[in-house]
């Protein structure tokens, strides 16, 4: 690499554990190639910190190809940073300019407490799924043939669009109410659109919504920020469908 990479100032949230107080700390990185991914830039910073005996910045990441849902940075005031339809690991440094100051924070929501630095605890999402995010079918080896119930391509495609949610929590992080309705709505929708999901539909929506409220997520006021920041483009329609399913469930005993 030639010496014409970017020089950047990073303002990063450092917090040693959930009990300790956190603060923003400034760091400098230099000669950053525009072809680097954002997380590779963070790797460079961490190598620099290790070399000087400092503790590197903890951040969640794993697949680095936008599908595991692990990475979760709030960059310059935007969940997953200044690009659309991507996760933090798919953000590239060509979105920034030489001399920029970049602010990096963890997801902020009371239902997502900080574990360390940029790592947050998202097990509230786990508990919502455990409350009903499944179809109760045992593994038996003799379920009916996969083609026994035809499903319209339209319904299957729409269920797939809802099912692409990666559970990263960007919707919650970006919402002024810290609402998890896009996440929960997507899961409810996937099953509501498929014949296999019908039997348990009323209980599912009641139980998942109740758990969502219990975890301390806020309500939806239809600002639509979640849809814009969602790396998988999950549509607000899913929230509408969840509400419809919830109302419907009140009429079914």
């Amino acid at each position, binding site marked *: 690499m030639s010496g014409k990479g970017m020089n950047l100032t990073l303002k990063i949230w450092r917090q040693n554990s959930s009990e300790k107080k956190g603060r923003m700390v400034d760091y400098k990185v230099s000669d950053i190639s525009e072809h680097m991914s954002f997380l590779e830039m963070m*790797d460079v910073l961490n190598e620099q910190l290790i070399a000087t005996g400092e503790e590197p910045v903890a951040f969640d990441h*794993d697949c680095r190809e936008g599908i*595991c849902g692990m990475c979760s940075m709030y960059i310059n005031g935007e969940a997953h940073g200044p690009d659309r339809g991507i996760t933090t690991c798919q953000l590239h440094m060509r979105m920034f300019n030489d001399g920029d100051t970049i602010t990096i924070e963890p997801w902020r929501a009371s239902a997502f407490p900080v574990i360390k630095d940029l790592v947050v605890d998202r097990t509230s999402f786990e508990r919502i799924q455990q409350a009903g995010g499944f179809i109760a079918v045992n593994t*038996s*080896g003799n*379920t009916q043939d996969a083609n026994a119930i035809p499903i319209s391509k339209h319904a299957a495609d729409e269920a797939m669009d809802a*099912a692409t949610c990666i559970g990263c929590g960007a919707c919650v992080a970006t919402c002024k109410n810290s609402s998890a309705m896009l996440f929960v709505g997507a899961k409810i929708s996937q099953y509501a659109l498929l014949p296999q999901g019908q039997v348990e539909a009323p209980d599912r929506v009641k139980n998942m919504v109740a758990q969502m409220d219990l975890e301390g997520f806020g309500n939806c006021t239809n600002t639509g920020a979640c849809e814009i920041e969602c790396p998988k483009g999950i549509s607000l329609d899913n929230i509408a469908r969840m509400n419809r399913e919830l109302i419907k469930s009140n009429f079914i005993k």
Partner: protein
Amino acid sequence: MKLDSKVPKGPIKDKWTTYKDKINLVNPANKRLIDVIVVGTGLAGGSASATLAELGYNVKAFAYQDSPRRAHSIAAQGGINAAKNYQGDGDSNYRLFYDTVKGGDYRSREANVYRLAEVSANIIDQCVAQGVPFARDYGGLLDNRSFGGVLVSRTFYAKGQTGQQLLLGAYSAMNRQIARGKIEMYNRHEMLDLVVIDGKARGIITRNLITGEVERHSAHAVVIASGGYGNVYFLSTNAMGSNATAAWKVHKKGAFFANPCYTQIHPTCIPRSGDYQSKLTLMSESLRNDGRIWVPKHMKDAKAIQAGKLRPTEILEEDRDYYLERRYPAFGNLVPRDVASRAAKERCDAGYGVNATGEAVYLDFATAIQRYGKEQAKIQGIDNATPEKITQLGEKIVEAKYGNLFQMYEKIVDENPYKTPMMIYPATHYTMGGVWVDYNLMTTIPGCYAIGEANFSDHGANRLGASALMQGLADGYFVLPYTIGDYLSNDIRTGPISTEAPEFEAAEKAVRSRLDFFIKNKGTKSVDHFHKRLGKVMWNNVGMARNEKDLKAAIQEIQQIREEFWKDVTVPGEPNQMNPELEKAGRVADFLELGELFAMDALERTESCGGHFREESVEEDGPQKGEAKRNDEEFTFVSAWEYKGDPKDAVLHKEHLEFNDIELKQRSYK
């Protein structure tokens, strides 16, 4: 110790059925008294955890991520094979079995592969019942696509996110059992050792990755489902956290490690761009359905491209070398992965690579765009369509088929693949080798099982596309739940296993002292420094083509790096809190041992087979000239290595492979 594969007697078609009829069962009341540990929650571990819990066992599942849903199975793009024959194109259990054995270059165990083919159809039924939204056609029935190395369409898919949807299915089944209390889920926990008591696997030692606490967990059986070891190369398509530690720990406690040299180098990945690179990104094999692979025919064009003075679109059709179509007319661009990868390397080594580093070839959609465009013009009744119109119509079709992959490419490379050909290069993707298991999926340690990519079982020396998802789910949903019951039927009177046993004490002590060592060592180089060096040796000397001289050099270099690592590694921070560098240090320490065994295995196997290509073993004449040359007389066996304290002292055991139902043939895709 003699290896016993425990393959049941009888005709291959009846083995599994007869086996299931005869094994011992555990009654439902007794299952409640039995604990099973599952390490890893991808397709294999997730499906096994859920099914074992449904059966009534008490399951403890462990994942290093913050949720089972994030295991790297999530990243599988293309699809899952099943012998449903929905397309009526002549598919059957036998054909899937045959293709898989042939695709694996005749180095897998027949009985296991047949069973895999046999249960494949059940997987699709099960997943649909769980609400997995597979692609469908307009009649509402399931759609299929075709993958490399086969002549039928048997691959089921959910857009380019099949692994994600299958894993979310297994995860939902797990959630149901977590809610019932039948699975105790340990997220952000890493297994750091296996505990063996009286010769049986009875528990594990873990580290809580949030608090740093070292914990003891006991069970009547331990299942390793922790995936493959591709990250031994540092750069691979694996997730950053993917590691071999769980598998390596059971190896060190007595489980044999099989065929470590069988690695899949996937042909269609985005080429590397710089030293800072942390991982490589795969582009689905499905792209080879429509993309044509080429390099310039003339050296002067290649040189001009490498220097940035010529654009690929400026090279005339007759000056391009579509080398896969030229060398393999029958399968063309859809040859199996090992063949496609080697062919790319051959052209790039000869100097025809198409980027600055000379390590890239083109994957070109221009022909497909024109073909689809003309077809669309006809369908839409547009007479005298302009070339621009045809291109526009064609691009629309290509976008509908591969839009998400094209977008991913453009985000990374910053070039528009509709207008200029994609650049691709092979990268480490999957490891066929792994912990040796018998027909029951049990390792050489009684009560310790290995499933999914973590074992060596079904793919031989090369894995066909869409077969990994099939194997993971087959093992977890349909095979292990039977076979483990047969073993556990002897444990109904054992009662809970105490974690106070001296074996737990000793294992915990060893784990703690290693963690302390890393923190206190205060060397001068980071963990990544050593990992990158190891990766470079592995890629250069134990990569796509291997030879005696380089392998011997690799073994020495790895020993050297390992020695320096233990002297000079530095791990900042504390052990009793979240510490990602400490996690990495342990994993890299294990890779530094595994890498050596890997190279030793590659050195030992002087034949070429599947993903393992020895430059000394090549067809010298005839129509197959230049192709890989297998040596069935000497090498029709599984290499199973026994740990003896240092990788160089490992002892080789051989499981001879018998082929009664398939004739051993040269694998020709010409």
